[in-house]
């Protein structure tokens, strides 16, 4: 039994030592040159999670809709300025009583398998989403439709009990599914979710489980042909690994955190040479919300005091490295719904102290913490395990200590966080974020009727004036009148301060410079709005991909 241990060890050491060879020469391609728009090529990106399926009304995760939106169409969509335009429909009309919407489909639409796409498919999709057997999280908007009809192949008519302003937005979110493939199938188990037939620019070519999804151009696309031939999405759960792949030129696109965006990439000339950075304002914000049913947060002076005591700019600079903005309404700044007359609460600790004193808080025992009725002002901020929210909480903790409030911080795993604390209302203060749709309706979040366990007004906000505005906003289809309603709503909300807006962070993306045709600076709808027009000029394509 001769194991030759020495040789083995030697080989092993050799393996370790062998890693000192010089690095391969990098080919000097200038990615900054301009090229004419051409078709072809492959775009590779990465996502952290694998979609469970590609029927997005069932699979509610973002990974699913990120892929399925390339495969399926909706009736309407938002253009680059966030105004509605037709996707599958040519035109739509709203009846005089504002209860009926008539959609007219574009002629000669086809599914990728050459079947024609008609209003029967749209009707089928509506029936599927409201079906008792389908547990779609997004059904509620569509349950409000009293009657839906497909009088001819190109017409689809929906009637509501009463005017419902977010209706059009809901039809911009429902991906239309093919009736001929899915009739009599259980949407929760159908194999179609893994081999979909759609009508949009791409169709699913290959799904390598746990590794990647490959989409290729759909020759029957409803809206003409995209420029890029293949979209490959690799599944790489770890962000650092994704970034290494980006550095090694194995992926073309990835979402960045502020450190990579403003520190790492700018500091490396070799990365700057090949990566273009984009920033766009997302449709979400981070906030600190009070449990309004708990004392002393029912006192508006206390909420104002805390709002003045927190330095939001410090959070934006410290946590988001300046890549965020301070907001004063729950709408994306720059859109028509955001009230330009509102300004955020400034950082003013003296005013905070005065307000707390007015509310009856004094430091009677001299320990630096305020008391009222012999009870110290002390509470716990809870948040989910999100680094940016945790860091924000630490900055808030320090600022509130300066005005005499003792704050503890607790970060909790998501499922426990929701079911144990949010649902039961067993919390004082939360730091969370809202990611919002493009319609201004926020009835589910702020209306006083939405406080049952599992509903979204978990902070217990109750203001009859706001209730009334939210109800009005749902009934008004005229955009200018709606704008007035939501501006008034945002103003009251800011005065009441049931939550403190901490920041709206930018979405940060790095895209390899070989990808051309991207709008920079990003329009309101973001850089992705014209992804079908992005192109990769022949000389800049990866060779490993071009040979298959």
């Amino acid at each position, binding site marked *: 039994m001769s194991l030759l241990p020495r040789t083995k060890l030697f080989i092993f050491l050799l393996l370790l030592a062998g890693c000192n060879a010089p690095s391969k020469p990098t080919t000097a391609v200038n990615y900054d040159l301009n090229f004419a728009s051409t078709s072809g090529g492959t775009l590779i990106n990465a996502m952290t999670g694998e979609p*469970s399926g590609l029927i997005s009304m069932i699979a509610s995760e973002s990974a699913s809709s990120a892929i399925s939106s390339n495969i399926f169409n909706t009736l309407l969509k938002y253009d680059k300025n966030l105004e509605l335009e037709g996707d599958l429909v040519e035109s739509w009309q709203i009846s005089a009583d504002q209860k009926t919407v008539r959609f007219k489909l574009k002629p000669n639409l086809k599914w990728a398998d050459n079947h024609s796409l008609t209003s029967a498919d749209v009707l089928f999709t509506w029936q599927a989403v409201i079906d008792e057997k389908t547990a779609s999280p997004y059904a509620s908007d569509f349950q409000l439709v009293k009657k839906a009809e497909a009088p001819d192949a190109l017409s689809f008519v929906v009637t509501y009990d009463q005017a419902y302003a977010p209706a059009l937005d809901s039809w911009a979110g429902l991906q239309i599914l093919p009736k001929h493939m899915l009739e009599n199938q259980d949407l929760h188990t159908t194999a179609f979710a893994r081999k979909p037939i759609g009508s949009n620019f791409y169709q699913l070519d290959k799904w390598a489980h*746990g590794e*990647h999804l490959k989409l290729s151009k759909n020759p029957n696309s409803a809206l003409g042909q995209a420029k890029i031939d293949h979209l490959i999405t690799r599944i790489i759960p770890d962000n650092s*690994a994704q970034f290494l792949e980006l550095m090694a030129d194995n992926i073309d696109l990835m979402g960045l955190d502020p450190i990579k965006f403003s520190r790492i990439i700018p500091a490396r000339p070799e990365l700057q040479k090949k990566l273009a950075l984009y920033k766009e304002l997302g449709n979400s914000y981070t906030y600190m919300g009070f449990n309004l049913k708990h004392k002393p947060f029912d006192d508006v002076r206390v909420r104002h005091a805390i709002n003045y005591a927190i330095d939001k700019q410090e959070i934006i600079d410290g946590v988001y490295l300046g890549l965020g903005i301070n907001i004063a309404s729950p709408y994306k700044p720059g859109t028509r719904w955001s009230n330009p007359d509102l300004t955020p609460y400034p950082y003013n600790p003296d005013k905070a102290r005065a307000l707390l004193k007015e509310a009856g808080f004094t430091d009677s025992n001299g320990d630096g913490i305020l008391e009222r009725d012999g009870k110290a002002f002390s509470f716990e901020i809870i948040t989910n395990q999100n680094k940016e929210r945790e860091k924000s909480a630490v900055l808030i903790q320090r600022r509130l200590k300066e005005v005499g409030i003792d704050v503890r911080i607790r970060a909790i795993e998501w499922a*426990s966080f*929701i079911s144990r604390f949010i649902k039961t209302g067993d919390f004082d203060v939360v730091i969370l974020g809202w990611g919002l*749709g493009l319609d201004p309706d926020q009835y589910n979040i702020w209306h006083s009727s939405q406080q049952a*366990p599992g509903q979204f007004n978990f902070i217990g906000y109750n203001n009859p004036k706001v209730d009334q505005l939210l109800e009005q906003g749902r009934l008004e289809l005229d955009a200018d009148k709606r704008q007035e309603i939501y501006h008034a709503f945002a103003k009251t909300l800011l005065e009441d301060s049931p939550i403190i807006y901490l920041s709206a962070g930018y979405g940060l993306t790095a895209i390899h410079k070989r990808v051309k045709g991207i709008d920079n600076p990003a329009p309101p709808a973001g850089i992705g709005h014209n992804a079908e027009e992005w192109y990769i000029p022949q000389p800049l394509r990866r060779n490993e991909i071009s040979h298959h």
Partner: protein
Amino acid sequence: MIPMLIGISLISFFIMHLAPGDITNNESAFNPKASEESRQKLREMYNLDKPVIVQYGLWLKRMATLDFGKSFASHQKPVFWQTTDKDGNVSKGMIQQALPITLMINLLGLTITLVLAIPLGIIAARKYQGWQDRSITLFNFIGFSIPGFWLSLLLMYWLGVVNNWFPISGLHSLNYDSLDTWDKIKDSFSHLFLPVVIPSITGLAGITLFVKNGMLEVLQQDYITTARAKGLNEHKVVYRHALRNALLPLITIIGLSIPGLIGGSVIAETIFAIPGMGKLFYDAVLMRDFPVVMGILTIGSALTLIGNLLADVAYAWADPRVRRGVAR
């Protein structure tokens, strides 16, 4: 063994259900568009509205026919093995897909560890307290102390980005299907290199020490002195007489590592983007995907029990003293 398995499954089922939340509390459910009614519907669909003991009964009933059920979170994929629907579409089982990958990586890793650890242990024992022993111990403990994820990221950067010698993550290249057989083997090898080698290095210390101490003990036995006194050369003494006996306890270790072979490392699988068992289990726990969690735990505990049994049998086979003890 069966009562033990039922006991294990009962405990794990209840612990899993003690954790707050269920499948309807995932991140995407916190969308103002998603209604509580739809979540309630889902709960009813998956029997999550029933008492835990009833849910356990339903699970046990299915398990009696070896039906591991369907995942809540992954479009109702079968948990264990593939099923075919009425149209002939095959839906692969989640464990069926993840297990071979994890098993291959762990078997390769274990092989490398043993191949390195046994010779290193022997050298360290023979040159006990010499410079060889000390440097092997030093090397092992450096490997043991380095956090695996950190070493992984460093090597990924160095071998993947700076030098482009090895792929950074994933199991196959994107053009894997168009490669010929030889290139496919090379491709798989290069993708597996880092995920296999890094855990082997960090796992080296334990086994090396084990072999070294076993050898040290055996080398002091009287029969080794006898063998030397007979005038056998040192090579024969060490490899024929000492090593065989020193390796006996290793059987126990290998037996005990059988369940470890099917459990992947979450961190390594996440960093290297490998769709293996560790990631599957971790995600299932976070999503409260009970059928998947229970499936993996059941298979894991069954394998643990089998592993123990096999180790005992192998021990009896290898060591006549144990065999005689059993016969008596």
